[in-house]
């Protein structure tokens, strides 16, 4: 398996500001994803981060609110823009296509715990 890191691990932000979360993998992967886990709830896919092109967003999530970059095969960022308290969640990145892993097997980073005041 690979090492997946996220920065920051947690943050407390003021409403109206933006936060960029980084996801770094120590080996190349084909797919990278961003999920949201609201307090006491399950995980919901925000978008698929595509290398070299625009991210693919799920219903209910838009690029203006959650811009995503993926400049290469090991790194992606998710920005939470113009934050409100409703954005308080854990944000997790996951990867697929690690060498030696089975097709469709996703591995998750440790998550970023965001609190918006």
């Amino acid at each position, binding site marked *: 398996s690979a090492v*997946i890191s996220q920065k920051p691990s947690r943050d407390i932000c003021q409403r109206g500001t933006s936060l960029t979360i980084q996801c770094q993998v120590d080996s190349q992967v084909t*797919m990278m*994803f961003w999920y949201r886990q609201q307090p006491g*709830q*399950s*995980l*919901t*896919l925000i978008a*698929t981060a*595509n290398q070299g092109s625009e991210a*693919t967003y*799920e219903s209910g999530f838009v690029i203006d609110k959650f811009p995503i970059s993926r400049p290469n095969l090991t790194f992606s960022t998710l920005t939470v823009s113009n934050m409100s308290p409703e954005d308080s969640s854990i944000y*997790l990145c*996951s990867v*697929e296509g690690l060498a030696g892993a*089975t*097709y*469709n*097997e*996703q*591995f*998750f*980073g*440790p*998550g970023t*715990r965001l609190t918006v005041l």
Partner: protein
Amino acid sequence: AQSVTQPDIHITVSEGASLELRCNYSYGATPYLFWYVQSPGQGLQLLLKYFSGDTLVQGIKGFEAEFKRSQSSFNLRKPSVHWSDAAEYFCAVALYGGATNKLIFGTGTLLAVQP
């Protein structure tokens, strides 16, 4: 629509007792199924997966799961629970094809282990 149901929100078992966490899915084709565990303040760790073949799959930490197509179920089991197993457990089904490979997660089961 595809969905995953974990009917038990919270389960408490005694250390050393057996455990079964339920998972039911709704998916038109043969599913790819997963169980993940999330310890407090941690990310998700893959316990086991089912893609095809033997319907009883073995995972890490002594866990196993059985795929039953007739019941649309993929229940997680462990014969003897350890205190360190206290965590939240998520069942997921993979939807794949096209531009997106998506995991649909259940709502999770929070496991408490009492001495």
